[in-house]
């Protein structure tokens, strides 16, 4: 058992090392991409539309944009090496600080959405697989299709319309908590956890209420792939020889379906959940915009629109690192869930 865990850690370390070249590539590529995109940040951040040529030149010099692109790249890379992601022109703060403030908001939203999606998708997939071709199966298929073909911002707006405007159940869809709630001391950055740690149940409930609508609208979009994968791998599992063995000795229905079939069927779902999580983290900008959620994606979009180089580059680097990390976690989970992997 210990050797298995040790081997997993060694594998994890090797994976991290092997992802470094890819991260470096992402770094350079984003840097170059930003220089190629139209838009001059010096003009954008000058005092006004009729700023003089000297003023713009001065800003340009101040930002280091007067140097050649390779020179800029070297400076940029050495900055990164020192843990400095640059300063945002929009907020006037270091990018690292901005990201550190906003990332927990995005992560909390994405984690919650993924959790909701999994809680909904796995049972749906299992139910569909138990009776393939039945009305239930078709119902699940229809639900999944609806979830996929309605864009998140539409479903988000619909949810706001129904639960905030019509029913009045949900709070004002702006931000993570309403302005009157006092924030708990920051520990994890996840408000729902921080409130609990601070023992503030009322605040926790308020944060949860804010969280639920954006999370659901994001989850709706990814239930389909998760449910389909669960259904497909559950069908394979149920038709497998070992499930037949389990039935041949008369194991209870529950034991056959859950312990034998589902535990095997869940393996590919772990992989897909990792991919879905990475995609959601980057792509939830629409939900963040609709619900005024102070996350990293909307931050990066604003920066991109205003040709603010540093935040965009920082965001891409962050996403790439998270992607590597998520894949690693998925691999480790898989290694724990499937004893065959550590051997291979």
């Amino acid at each position, binding site marked *: 058992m210990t050797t298995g865990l040790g081997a997993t850690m060694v594998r994890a370390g090797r994976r991290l090392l092997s992802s470094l070249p890819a991260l470096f590539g992402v770094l350079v590529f984003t840097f170059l991409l930003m220089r190629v995109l139209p838009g001059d940040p010096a003009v954008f951040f000058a005092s006004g539309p009729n700023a003089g040529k000297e003023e713009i030149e001065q800003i340009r010099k101040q930002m280091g944009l007067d140097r050649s692109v390779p020179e800029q790249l070297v400076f940029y890379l050495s900055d990164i090496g020192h843990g400095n992601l640059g300063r945002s022109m929009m907020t006037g703060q270091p990018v690292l600080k901005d990201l550190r403030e906003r990332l927990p908001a995005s992560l909390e939203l994405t984690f919650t959405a993924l959790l909701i999606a999994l809680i909904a998708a796995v049972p749906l997939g299992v139910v569909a697989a138990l009776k393939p071709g039945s009305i239930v199966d078709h119902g699940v298929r229809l639900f999944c299709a609806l979830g996929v073909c309605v864009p998140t911002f539409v479903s988000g707006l619909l949810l706001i319309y129904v639960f905030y405007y019509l029913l009045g159940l949900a709070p004002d869809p702006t931000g993570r908590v309403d302005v009157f709630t006092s924030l708990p001391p920051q520990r994890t950055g996840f408000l729902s956890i921080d409130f609990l740690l601070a023992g503030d149940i009322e605040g926790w409930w308020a944060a949860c209420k804010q969280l639920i609508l954006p999370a659901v609208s994001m989850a709706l979009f990814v239930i389909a792939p998760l449910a389909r994968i669960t259904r497909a791998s559950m069908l394979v599992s149920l038709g497998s020889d070992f499930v*037949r063995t*389990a*039935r*041949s*000795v*008369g194991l209870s229905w529950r034991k056959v379906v859950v312990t034998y079939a589902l*535990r095997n069927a869940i393996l590919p779902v772990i992989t897909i959940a990792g991919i879905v999580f990475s995609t959601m983290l980057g792509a939830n900008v629409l939900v963040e915009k609709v619900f005024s959620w102070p996350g990293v994606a909307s931050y990066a979009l604003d920066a991109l629109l205003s040709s603010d180089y540093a935040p965009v580059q920082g965001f891409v680097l962050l996403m790439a690192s998270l992607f590597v990390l998520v894949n690693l976690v998925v691999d480790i989970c898989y290694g724990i869930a*499937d004893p*065959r992997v550590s*051997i291979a």
Partner: protein
Amino acid sequence: MSEELLGINDLHVSFSTRRGMVEAVRGVTLSVEKGEMLGLVGESGSGKSVTGFATTRLLDAAGRVTGGKILFRGQDVTKLRGDDLRQLQGAAMSMIFQNPRAALNPIRAIGLQIADAILTHKKISKDAARAETLELLCAVQIRDPETRMNAYPHELSGGMCQRVMIAIAISCNPALLIADEPTTGLDVTTQKVVMDLLADIAAARGMATILITHDLGLAARYCRRIAVMERGRIVEEASPKKLFSAPQHAYTRRLVAASPTATSRIEDLVTEEERERHATIVSKPRQQLPHGTPPLLEVRKLAKRFDQGSAAVADFSMTMAGGESVGLVGESGSGKSTTSRMICRLIDPSEGDIVFDGQSIGHVASRDFHRSPLRKDIQMVFQDPNESLNPRFTAFDCIAHPLMRLDGMRAADALRKRVEECAERVGLPLDLLPRFPHQLSGGQKARVGIARAIACRPRLLVLDEPTAALDVSVQAVVLQLLDRLRRENDIALLFVSHDLNVVRMLCDRTIVLRNGGIVEQGESRALFDNPKTDYTRKLVEAIPHIETGPALAAAL
């Protein structure tokens, strides 16, 4: 007779498929007495497994019992529902499956899987179940059971997995055990050990057993009564002795003839009526090579090591003359496939040299060998006829492909003529050529594979278990075909197989491999009749023998 445990009465089972209902079992009547072992023998598609699954109520969702009764202790199994059914499964009757590794849950420790079965039927504590699991593992002779309890199926060999499966099946002392091809895919020596164990356990616990198998020899060795099935019906039921000495039904006669035995010859494999055609060809003697002819193939001190660890093959040397047939036998893991692939130049040897027709080819990288002019002289027939044909190529394309690539044939007319000629030589009807592999039967696919291999008129044909996936009657025809090709065209055959009876018939010489090294080699008949090493003797003795009395010889 005395005590009937199971009585199957006019059983009909149908499967709904895309092309409508297909009747797999049409009126099977069988009875099993307490404690007896009954053999249920037939070829693929004969409905023998379906009969077993219907009895244990494990048919697929598509399958339905459409008629008849299955009486177990006087109770009709087909009418049981819910809890009554679950009390029957595992506790009163249980099943052992083919492919033991797939039959066990890959991500659950085997000890837990056995305990699951125990806890389902007995109201005992987890600790007590654990103790019983240990006892069961001891009963199926698994060494070091304490440690093995925590092992996963992939950490055990195929034979071990089958023992675990047996442990699960006998965990609640069922009165009836149905073993569905329990040893197919296992080595002969493992097969013997597993079957002996199964027979001992059944005898000790007084369990009745139905042994479902395609191997007549195996059934004859362990059963006192054998029922032969063909196309969903039982065509004959008799004691093994009677079955072999005086088979009544035409199908049984064909099956008995096609089952290779210690003394059978290639030409014996079909019944008298079918033999006429073949006999004329066999009579043509093989031309003797003048003395001093250089060998066609010479392998010197070949070795193969994979990434790390010990050698898969070490110090392997052999020679083959043109038109000779050599058998390469050994258990799984003995390195016979690796060796054959090195000789075929599909993988690179780590050491040693291969000389073909005076040219050293051992050092040509396997990646580049397809450009060598010798590529068409060495061809291969693979084990699985399903997997080794491109599913998107028609039979014609499959055979034409090597002709276009290796012979550079482009002209459509000439190509068509050559392909049709090849098809005729392997006995493949020409109207099957436009079909895709999935539209062909196993035997037809095997023929396409052989036609493809001989298309470029090779001088050496390497065959890796070419008949392992085929029914005995199809195997008989394929073996005759290979023998004929060898005699007619002087193709040398390197025949890799675990089936010693087949090797004995087809090959002039035999090489026995174990753990990557040669244990023994020599003229086939002498080697099998009088093995010099213990290992070879063990292999030979493990083959299930069919008693061929004088009566049988007369009947043939």
